[in-house]
């Protein structure tokens, strides 16, 4: 596998390293605002991966919805609560060691399990795979019921968030 690395594989490795680095920054850094900025960079790098996987609409939605709206919401809450850099950010060293060990074990377990599993039947992709029309066709025919339920869920979320965040006055 490591014999001849093509351009796309080298690009994948570099981007993957950057993604892992920014994800680590999110969970390790002591300043919440820096964590949020690192989260934005992780999400944008993942959007690049989605582009490489022929999922253009999902990639651009990732940037619009996740990086452009959800993390802005996080930043707003952090600024409203005026969270400064935490002095004691993590639990005790025993917890950190145990969790790191557990995380590495989990990653190793999944990767080895995948290595042993049979590869899914590889199929070619048709024309227009990952385009807006293809995704929309699936959404409005085969997945219509989940689509409608999701819009209901969004409505419930809007009402719930406003109700929860309002100051209780009288």
């Amino acid at each position: 596998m490591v014999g001849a690395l093509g351009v796309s594989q080298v690009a994948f490795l570099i981007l993957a390293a950057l993604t892992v680095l920014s994800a680590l920054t999110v969970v390790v850094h002591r300043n919440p605002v820096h964590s949020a900025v690192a989260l934005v960079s992780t999400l944008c790098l993942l959007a690049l991966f989605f582009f490489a996987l022929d999922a253009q609409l999902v990639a651009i939605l990732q940037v619009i919805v996740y990086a452009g709206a959800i993390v802005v919401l996080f930043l707003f809450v952090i600024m409203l609560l005026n969270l400064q850099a935490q002095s004691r950010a993590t639990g005790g060293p025993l917890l950190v060691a145990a969790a790191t060990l557990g995380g590495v074990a989990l990653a190793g377990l999944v990767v080895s399990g995948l290595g042993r599993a049979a590869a899914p039947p590889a199929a070619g992709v048709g024309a227009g795979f990952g385009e807006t029309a293809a995704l929309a066709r699936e959404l409005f025919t085969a997945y219509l019921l989940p689509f409608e339920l999701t819009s209901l869920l969004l409505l419930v979320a809007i009402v719930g968030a406003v109700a929860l965040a309002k100051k209780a006055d009288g």
Partner: protein
Amino acid sequence: MAVDVAIAAAKALFIVLLVVQVMGLGVFFERKVSALIQDRIGANRAAIFGFAGLGLVNTLVADPIKFLLKEDVVPASSDRLLHSLAPILSLVPVLVTFAVVPFGDVLEVGGRVVNLQAAELSIGILYVLAMVSLGVYGVVLAGWASNSRWSLLGGIRGSAQMISYEIAMGLALIGIVLTYNTLDLQEMARAQGTLLWGWLPAWGILYQPIGFLIFMTAGIAESKRIPFDLPESESELVSGYFTEYSGPKHLMFMMSDFVEVVLVAALVTTLFFGGWQIPWLYRDGFHFPFGGAVALPSLAVAVLQVTSFALKLVFFTWLQIVIRWTLPRFRYDQLMRLGWQGLLPLALANVVVSALLIVLWSGRSA
């Protein structure tokens, strides 16, 4: 392969240069048009060997040099990394959006047909929305990182305003997407070359007048220009979210302000006013509906189209500057009320009515 890369690089360079020129022109207009509106002369003191060029030397030479040579002051208690990152996050997304704006139809050069658009994305319009969403970070981080109450207030107001008007902008774009049945800006510009009733070019403004008004308003609100400039409000918040910036970083914020003006102008042109289209000009020359045709080589057609695009850009930049110096600014609650209770229902109604009319008149279904 190498030729493809060279062509792509040339297109990208061309559009960036065009944008920077129009932005420079915009800055000059800002000084001179405001002076004309306010019955004064405007900046004309800086001169090179006595040549003041109507204030061109002042605006385009002296001002940038002044900004670049000023000392870069960073407040002591500020977050250095974010303080330096915020201007970049403000400027880069706005500049990068121009990659999907078409500035001409095609250019036949050496047997190749070159599409005059820097990046041919099938999801062009969504890319624009994505970059506009990323532009919020510049504001929010600038306000937070400066660690000063003027900046924080300006930053929070600015980002809340931007995300509110993003929604109205996106919904106004849905009407246009429904009309042209595509997300690609070049296809939309090409589709506006068809003729209604044999003589009227089918520009977007005829199909989506309400959409144009909503988009223009939302666009001016996104770029935080007067009448929506409360986050910056020079007379109230000192300088709002970029109070604590000086020197080159301040220049980057001002640049991003003007580049966004040009961006709104470019989008309005492409979506509603035909982009690079000149009425009755096709790839092989003019074909007038009342008879007569003028054959033109491909290069001449491309030059005419690029010129028409540039002129429309300059016109809409000028229009935004005139709007800036004419209207008073909105109070913050009026601003938010306009965005949520005015533009949003109007944009939703626009989408519903557009969809109904499309199904009924053109019989287009799924």
